[in-house]
């Protein structure tokens, strides 16, 4: 292997290190082309039938190993492979001269389109059919079975990126670390790694050259993957991980900088269960309570009483602490039948968030009434905020309607660039603001955050995003309005320091990240955070900002 392969760079998720053998996830199977078969239709038919039944058998076998809900999912996929209607369609296409590969691909595609057109839950399952087709085509061509490989010994999984379906069958106990060649810090892999506390380096394009079985040292802290590391390097990395773990376990209590400057660490939650987990992990409250999760799949809004019951259960986990509730954020990737307009061409730019609530004001008023009722019966300090606010008028509208509903603290999310650009006008119309870095990044770059091909633009370290956050921070300080951050950015410990330097007064994240962020904040003074922030906003790119801030850290355990 060439010298260039000894150190591979990517974006680290978390702070862990891991050493082990590489197991590669097979590259996606290419779609077959429609060329005339050179075999007889009988031969092609036999190939197709054999491939489909072998695929079904393999899926069932995997299901038996996995057990539980994964077995049910895999069993349903096996039924699709053996489906009699599909078999009829495949036979017809082969009789018309198609190869077994193309017949299976095209037949699955036509069923897939039917499902996709039905939308909702079935539309989401349409991808399963592609998965089954790819497995059968890999079988026909003698390629390795797509999906997460099975291994009896722990390994480091190297993949392009993990799809949601892959993670369902991922046995976390056997995965030491994840390395992806594509996808950025907000990719599905990164979110999974953060949630489960798995060491990961994402977007490490040179990892495409890694061979199966090679020993690598994955260092999330430095965002590197080292090939064939020597014993000394491994010992050093493990020692550093142990030191960090010690710092982390020693840090407890409220978030604060080295100089005592308080930065409350809050949790992002979407359900009563996640609120309970967050409280157990030492969250100082909730910075983002996503209420739409409670409504997903509902044909109409739940009644005020039903809503109040759920809210009360979440508030009960945080007596005496702050709980910031985001009112319904429907639209784009989370449509709700009773709020979202059908057939928008660009739903991410459509009537979503507060825009949809303004059009259905009774839904908003009912939710605020339910929240006020639940808040009155609890000891939590309940605040509300509106998603997708674009103008000062919208901020004023929301504050007025919340105050009318007896909720005294009403803020707005800053995730549309216009709200950040006019922060000096928007901020005074709110009791607090909370910056949603995921959507803000998506809108600043005009890059769909769910689209893998533009994932490289979805990086909250980018100075284009940081400069907007800086102007919001300034407006907050000038008007005495608190500025929170909720979004994946706050979960990156070093970026969290930069955000505080830019004026963030609270940070909200998935609760698994709180310990790491708390430990990092405790190593920096406010002056230091502001110095690092200035370095980050002056950088020309996300990569340069990350590198420059890493190098400028006063206390770098790796050096």
């Amino acid at each position, binding site marked *: 292997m060439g010298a260039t392969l000894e150190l591979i760079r990517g974006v680290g998720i978390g702070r862990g290190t891991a050493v082990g053998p590489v197991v590669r996830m097979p590259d996606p199977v290419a779609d077959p082309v429609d060329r005339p078969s050179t075999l007889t239709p009988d031969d092609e038919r036999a190939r197709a039938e054999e491939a489909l039944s072998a695929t079904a058998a393999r899926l069932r076998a995997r299901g038996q190993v996995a057990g539980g809900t994964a077995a049910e999912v895999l069993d*349903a996929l096996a039924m*699709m492979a053996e489906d009699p209607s599909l078999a009829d369609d495949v036979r017809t296409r082969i009789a018309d001269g198609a190869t077994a590969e193309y017949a299976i691909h095209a037949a699955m595609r036509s*069923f897939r389109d*039917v499902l996709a057109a*039905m939308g909702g839950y079935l539309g989401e399952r349409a991808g399963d*059919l592609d998965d089954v087709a790819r497995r059968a085509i890999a079988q026909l061509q003698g390629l390795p079975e797509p999906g997460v490989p099975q291994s009896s010994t722990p390994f480091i999984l190297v993949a392009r990126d993990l799809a949601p379906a892959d993670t369902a069958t991922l046995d976390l106990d056997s995965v030491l670390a994840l390395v992806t060649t594509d996808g950025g810090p907000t990719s599905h892999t990164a979110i999974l790694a953060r949630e489960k506390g798995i060491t990961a380096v994402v977007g490490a394009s040179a990892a495409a050259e890694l061979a199966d079985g090679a020993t690598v040292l994955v260092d999330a802290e430095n965002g590197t993957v080292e090939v064939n590391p020597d014993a000394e390097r491994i010992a050093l990395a493990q020692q550093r991980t142990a030191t960090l773990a010690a710092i982390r376990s020693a840090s407890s209590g409220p978030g604060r900088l080295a100089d005592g400057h308080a930065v409350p660490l809050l949790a992002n939650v979407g359900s009563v269960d996640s609120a309970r987990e967050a409280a157990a992990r030492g969250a100082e409250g909730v910075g983002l309570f996503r209420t739409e999760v409670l409504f997903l799949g509902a044909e109409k809004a739940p009644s005020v009483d039903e809503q109040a019951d759920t809210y009360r259960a979440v508030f009960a986990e945080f007596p005496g602490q702050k709980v910031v509730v985001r009112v319904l954020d429907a639209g784009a990737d989370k449509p709700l039948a009773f709020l979202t307009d059908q057939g928008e061409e660009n739903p991410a730019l459509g009537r979503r968030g507060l825009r949809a609530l303004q059009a259905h004001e009774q839904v908003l008023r009912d939710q605020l009434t339910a929240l006020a009722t639940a808040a009155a019966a609890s000891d939590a300090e309940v605040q509300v905020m509106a998603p997708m606010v674009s103008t000062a008028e919208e901020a004023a509208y929301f504050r007025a309607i919340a105050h009318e509903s007896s909720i005294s603290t009403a803020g707005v999310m800053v995730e549309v660039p216009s709200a950040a650009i006019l922060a000096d006008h928007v901020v005074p119309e709110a009791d607090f603001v909370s910056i949603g870095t995921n959507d803000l990044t998506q809108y600043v770059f005009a890059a769909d955050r769910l689209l893998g091909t533009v994932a490289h633009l979805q990086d909250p370290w980018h100075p284009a995003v940081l400069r907007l956050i800086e102007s919001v921070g300034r407006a907050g300080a000038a008007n005495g309005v608190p500025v929170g951050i909720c979004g994946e950015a706050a979960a990156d410990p070093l970026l969290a320091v930069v955000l505080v330097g830019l004026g963030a007064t609270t940070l909200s994240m998935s609760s698994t990240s709180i310990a790491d962020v708390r430990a990092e904040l405790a190593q920096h003074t406010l002056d230091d955070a502001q110095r690092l922030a200035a370095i980050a906003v002056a950088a020309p790119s996300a990569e340069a900002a990350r590198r420059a801030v890493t190098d400028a850290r006063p206390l770098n355990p790796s050096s």
Partner: protein
Amino acid sequence: MAERTLAVASANGLHARPAALFVKTVTDSGQTVTLTKGERSINAASILGVVSLGIEHGDHVTLAVDGDNADATLDELAAFLSTDHDA
């Protein structure tokens, strides 16, 4: 041939898991079963066929069973569809 029309009880209709369980019941019976919703009839041993009907809670469907044991199978399948499997 035995035939019956009834309303589907599952809260989320005949999607995903209930659909898979239904198809399994059909294939285990060894009988030829046709499921009809509105104008469309499909082979009930086909999960793709069943889900493509887009059957929602409360939709009326017609079951038609052909085979040696048609009446018993029809009773079993009718009972399945009249139960809420999402509860």
